[in-house]
């Protein structure tokens, strides 16, 4: 029995972190966001792809690494820790899992290879299947899609979109289709992109096995939730580390603020709240990979619990930094905002807890 990340997982995770620390420190991220520096962003993307990040979950028969979700979870922690301006969730987790489970042979061959060869990138629009809004929604009919989807994840600069309708059927749309319009949304989190997409009789390739089976969609959402939880976990870890480091440096009343118990206790509370989250998220990923019966509930609880914990951490860590914490200079708000948006993606905590209750027939 061994509960924790394996050496390989730790090693890969550290490599991702190291790459990001070297190539995507906060000042670079700020440049990308403020000046829309495409080249800088592409450097980061290419560097991560060179590490093999796009092939983690692609099965070996399609030339990928065929690793499990726990591996991707470890990577996601690093991405969150370093607020990476990179869309991992859609292209490299949710799309592969939806395709593996929902695609027919041809579809898998085409799209999985495309991801692997770095030719295809995906945005994911599953909001309508999780919490549909009255003025959004679309219909698949005769291989055409009509309507609109809101909060499509990572739709910036991608070749394809993955959409799921209210019945859980998944379809792939090519973004070069003239009959779609992608409108960028502005959230507080500028490290990743969120869009609204309007479809006017655009062509759609419906994933064959998703027509009669809801599992491809559910699995993709479960995985996405675990990956988002891991992202917030990593971001929270970074915040605690920053708060503790700052508290040792900053002096007031002639002593380090970290020696004041009020500050110390905020940090201890953050650490105590976060520590079990590592285990919960890894356990959820392990269940996803090996114990399907327990997987969905674990994914729900991991996402909603980590969302709650990291929200509080993002507040307290900001407070420990005092006025500095509120400035753009220090940049704590990037982590605060990333956590804030992760919390709502693929279901707010309340939405997910209701699902968790239903899963248990409560």
């Amino acid at each position: 029995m061994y509960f924790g990340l394996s050496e390989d997982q730790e090693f890969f995770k550290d490599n991702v972190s190291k790459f990001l620390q070297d190539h995507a420190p906060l000042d670079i991220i700020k440049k990308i966001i403020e000046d829309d520096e495409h080249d800088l962003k592409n450097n980061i993307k290419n560097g991560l792809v060179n590490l093999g990040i796009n092939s983690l979950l692609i099965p070996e028969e399609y030339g990928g690494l065929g690793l499990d979700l726990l591996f991707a979870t470890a990577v996601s922690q690093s991405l969150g820790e370093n607020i990476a301006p990179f869309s991992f969730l859609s292209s490299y987790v949710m799309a592969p899992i939806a395709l593996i489970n929902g695609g027919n042979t041809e579809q898998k061959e085409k799209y999985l290879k495309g991801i692997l060869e770095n030719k295809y990138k995906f945005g994911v629009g599953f909001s309508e299947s999780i919490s549909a809004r009255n003025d959004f929604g679309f219909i698949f009919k005769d291989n055409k899609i009509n309507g609109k989807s809101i909060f499509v994840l990572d739709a910036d600069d991608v070749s394809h979109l993955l959409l799921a309708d209210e019945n859980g059927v998944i379809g792939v749309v090519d973004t070069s289709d003239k009959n779609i319009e992608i409108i960028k949304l502005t959230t507080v989190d500028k490290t990743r992109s969120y869009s609204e997409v309007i479809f006017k009789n655009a062509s759609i390739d419906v994933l064959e096995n998703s027509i009669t089976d809801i599992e491809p969609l559910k699995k993709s959402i479960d995985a996405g939730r675990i990956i988002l939880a891991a992202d917030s976990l990593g971001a929270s870890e970074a915040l605690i580390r920053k708060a503790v480091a700052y508290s040792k440096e900053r002096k007031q009343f002639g002593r380090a603020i970290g020696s004041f118990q009020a500050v110390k206790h905020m940090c201890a509370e953050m650490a105590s709240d976060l520590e079990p989250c590592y285990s919960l998220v890894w356990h959820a990923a392990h269940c996803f990979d090996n114990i399907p019966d327990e997987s969905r509930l674990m994914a729900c609880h991991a996402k909603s619990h980590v969302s709650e914990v990291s929200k509080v951490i993002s507040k307290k860590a900001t407070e420990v930094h005092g006025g500095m914490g509120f400035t753009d200079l220090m940049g704590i708000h990037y982590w605060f905002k990333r956590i804030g948006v992760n919390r709502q993606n693929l279901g707010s905590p309340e939405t997910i807890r209701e699902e968790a209750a239903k899963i248990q027939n409560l």
Partner: protein
Amino acid sequence: MNLNYGPEYKNFKKEVISFCKKWEGVHFVDEAKSPLTPITKVGGKKITRTEWQSILIKEGYFARSIPKEYGGYGGESDVIKNRIIATEFSNHGVPSPMSGQGIDMLVPTLLELGTEQQKKQYIEKTLLGEIIWCQGYSEPNAGSDLASLQTKGELVDGNWVINGQKIWTSTAQYSQMMFCLVRTEPEAKKHAGISYLLIPMETPGIEIRPLVDMTLKAGFNEVFFTNVTIPEANIVGKRGEGWAVANATLTHERGSLTNPNATMNRVNSLINIMKKETINGKKLIDIPVYRDKLMTLQAKVMAFQSNSLRVLSAKLNPGQDVKMAGMIQKYYGTELRHELEGFAVDVMGEIGTLYESSPHLRDKGSWQFLYMYYLGLIIGGGTSQIQKNIIAERGLGMPREPKVQEV
């Protein structure tokens, strides 16, 4: 990640299950000494606690790694087997082995630091429940700041003569023995002047005054010492080393105060109540705010369970770093349990406040009782605030409080 215990444990689990089936419904003829002793079903076999302890030891389900010569089973220590035993006993409603400060704290201390004579004299009887121990650490003016304790011990003609007072001593009124911290070296510095003594509670000069606690059930005590005289040999470790000896046991205590699986069992009991009870024609489980809070707590308990698997893993895989995961357990576990029990009271509303032998009690009033009991555990064994100091200073490396000039 590998959560399989391995094939050899499959058989072990089967053995434990068949043992549990055989003893299902067993209950005790003698009174429980601790309010937390599991409630057993009525019917089935009757047995004394001591008989039960000796059956468990013989099977290797208790005192597994304690050598035979001291009354244990004499096997290898095996955390996985311990976990299987605990899980199956709880699943089958078979009473757990006794626990308490003697078993959880004193026995490990004696095994580590006691003399041969002390091990022979005390361990077996403690395991069998023939000697109940109490912990005489806290004093009226030495709680969190335990090392400032003032109860005095002087060596006179080959005997320790003890004078002073202890307080909040749990189970003192039922105990045969006390392990006690006493200041024996008044000239030495605060931490270096303490010794760890073993005191028979029947010694003349000891007066026990029960102190009613908020549950009205558990009950701790004040213990007064007036020229209490015990043999010089009743010391564990050397003179002035008592602080180190006590610290060995405090780690054992903190580990034993919270059990995530027992907490999850409480979540399940609460779910049963919420499915049954209705308010204004609506089942409690269908009331959105309660439903949401229940799921919030279930997730938190799950996180705590996973955390404890990680702590367990580190015992099997030396070198795995889980320092923080271990350090947070007392604080996290007691606060979580208190929150859960209190939530159950809220969910039941007025019915949840019924107590003692009132009509309409739910689950024998255990929710209200444990809601208060766990407030006691948040305070006892190092308060939450002290835990946070430890987590911040030793876990996160934050600077200590500047020392106040001692007077």
